């Protein structure tokens, strides 16, 4: 039962996991050198950790636990630089984005570790199609009950995170018309979706034990929920974000999650309500398909409104919390992007329209990840 023991966090701490694409410098298709790169990075002193992910085309950056946005941003920056530098020694490039625009999933190979082999055996082609790249944001909670409350309340804001991070308009060589096509790949898994509407941690444990007794899951890892509690870290983990095209944006998204969590846990604006889950699928689709141009149904006010407006209101609403956490600047930057209608997905489409080649779109995206000055707005 140790695994399910909720380790309390001191306040809304922050942590980020970023799944990154490794691409070859000569054709910008996905590379298969994650193992080589990880071996090199082992010898480099890094603030966080870099880990293998399911395919050999992917690495994952894990930040340390932070209380302030600025420290997280600085750490991600340093990790980004180290990874880009070491990848360069191997003639590889690294880029953000929720999916590789033109790779063919049949060519992906799964990383040869036991867990990943098991995933491949169990899920077949889904596991390979799951070559998508996400950002996970951890926010600390003082108790399991807080975590349950926070998961329910954060669900209303899931479309915000989808729209603000969306960066996978192209998938397997096609414009999917979605802002985030990655989310669709996640949906295919049997344990995707959301946490059931439990009222507290005790009830959640009951549910978990039942599922384990059924043999549906072995551990929390088997739930691919949009937001899930992570008892051993004492956090909730928001998993709906595409990996943005820059570390700056990744850090800003985390700052927004932190401010929201602080507001929700400190003010407890309302009790958790089942209604959020009634509109969740609709809101989630709108955000993935249309991004900032989508609609959102507010389950509490029972109104439909433009998602962008809702995001701007929420950003303004939690600004006091953000200021207290020294993250106001991050939220202001996100708000400015929403106001001018900027998204990473649109940037990718714009670059493709300009250079008419998905390979060159990946090249520009990698240059942007590495910190080069972007050509277009953003």
């Amino acid at each position: 039962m140790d695994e399910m023991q909720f380790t309390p966090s001191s306040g809304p701490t922050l942590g980020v996991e970023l799944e990154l694409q490794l691409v070859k410098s000569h054709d910008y298709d996905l590379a298969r050198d994650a193992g080589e790169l990880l071996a090199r990075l082992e010898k480099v002193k890094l603030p966080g950790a870099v880990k293998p992910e399911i395919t050999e085309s992917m690495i994952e950056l894990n930040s340390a636990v932070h209380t302030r946005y600025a420290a997280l941003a600085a750490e991600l920056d340093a990790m980004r630089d180290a990874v880009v530098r070491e990848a360069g020694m191997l003639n590889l490039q690294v880029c953000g984005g929720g999916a590789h625009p033109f790779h063919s999933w049949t060519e992906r190979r799964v990383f040869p570790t036991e867990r990943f082999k098991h995933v491949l055996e169990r899920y077949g082609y889904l596991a390979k199609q799951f070559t998508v790249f996400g950002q996970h944001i951890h926010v600390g909670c003082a108790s399991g009950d807080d975590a349950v409350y926070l998961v329910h309340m954060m669900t209303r804001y899931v479309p915000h995170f989808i729209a603000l991070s969306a960066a996978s308009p192209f998938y397997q060589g096609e414009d999917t018309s979605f802002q985030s096509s990655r989310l669709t790949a996640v949906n295919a898994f049997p344990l995707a979706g959301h946490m059931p509407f439990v009222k507290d941690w005790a009830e959640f444990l009951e549910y978990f034990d039942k599922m384990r007794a059924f043999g549906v899951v072995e551990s929390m890892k088997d739930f691919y929920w949009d937001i899930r509690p992570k008892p051993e870290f004492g956090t909730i983990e928001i998993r709906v974000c595409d990996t943005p095209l820059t570390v700056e944006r990744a850090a800003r998204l985390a700052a927004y999650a932190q401010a929201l969590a602080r507001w929700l846990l400190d003010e407890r604006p309302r009790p958790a309500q089942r209604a959020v889950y009634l509109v969740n699928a609709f809101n989630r689709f709108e955000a993935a398909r249309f991004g900032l141009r989508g609609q959102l149904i507010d389950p509490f006010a029972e109104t439909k409104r433009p998602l962008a407006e809702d995001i701007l209101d929420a950003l303004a609403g939690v600004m006091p919390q953000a200021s207290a956490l020294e993250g106001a600047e991050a939220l202001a930057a996100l708000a400015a992007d929403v106001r001018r209608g900027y998204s990473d997905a649109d940037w990718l489409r714009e670059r493709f329209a300009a250079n008419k080649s998905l390979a060159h779109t990946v090249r520009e995206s990698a240059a942007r990840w590495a910190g080069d000055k972007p050509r277009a707005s953003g």
Partner: protein
Amino acid sequence: MSLGFLPQLPPAFGQPALFGALLLAGLLGGELVRRLLGLPRITGYVLAGVLLGPQVSGLLAPGALGEARVLIDLSLGLIVFELGHRLDAQWLRRNRWLFVAAIAESAFCFGAVLAALLAFGFQPLLAATAAAIGTATSPAVGLLVAHELRASGQVTERMLLFTAVNCVLAYVALTLLLPFLHLEHAMSWREAVLHPLYILGGSALVGFVASLAMLWLAGWVGKREDHQFILLVALVVLAVGAARSLNLSVVVTLIILGMLARNFDYEHVLLPLRFGYGGQLFFVILFVLTGASVEFTALPGVAAAVAAFIVARFLGKGLAIVAFGRLSGVRPGSAGLLTLALLPMSGLAVVMVLDTQAMYPAFGGELAAVVLSAVAVLEILGPIATQFALKRAGEADPAAGSA
């Protein structure tokens, strides 16, 4: 009744029939060797060539081989262009030790082969010429094996990079040895100095001009894969033709064209290069023809020197990779595999020998026999070594099957 419309018997088959026959022979040979022996298809292409060639069946007469030189040059041109295009100057800039390792790989190999040949009592100048030829790895084998295995990874990338570098250096060394060969033949100082300058400078110039034309036209054509493919083939063939008629080096011209087209593409007008099925045709032709021109008959007489040549070549390359590989980021286990992958010699070496012989008949006899016999052995063993190395390094795509 006269049937004047009937051809004279036996009918004279021209170039098209030759082209078709070579392709068919290559296809059959490659597939048979793969199915029956589980060896790389390339080995089958070469064996098909050997069987057709003057040494076995004589279906391909030496005269036909002369005519086919155009095909060899075209195929080699396309392949060497692709190789040059893979040579990423930025990688060398970021990873200086890699550059050192690539230079050392050529230098050590040259030195080792030279020492071996001197030990066999060959005249220093001619031994150096042979060592220069031996420095080059076959670009065609490396690229084709990598293509067919859909290999991707550090050993593959480095094999191609080292091959590009050692081909260039081998040619430069060979050209720089020209003045000495000239002097040996009591030609004028002026000719001795100007000839290598003409070859290197002229080839570089043609490659440079062609690369400018390629980039300019690619920008104008736009990012259409089909149109860019035609453009690339057109300019490669033009450059091959220009190099041939100006008595320049096809290989140097095309490798420079490839390198500059890649590294001068500041506006990013070129799409990633994919020769696909069209490229395959030229690979098959090249291997069948080099198979037909290999020289086995001399092998028994010079077997010891050939063995020394091959072993010294391997050790030279291996020593450099072991010495500098770590610093450039080669994992310890991969150094041996990379050395093995660099083993092949083929069409390029045959062309080098033929060219040198044409200019200096003294570079004939026993030494040419040693080099050509080494080529013959490595034609067969090389692709097997490269395939083994890439598979063993885990860089082959398991779905791609065997090369």
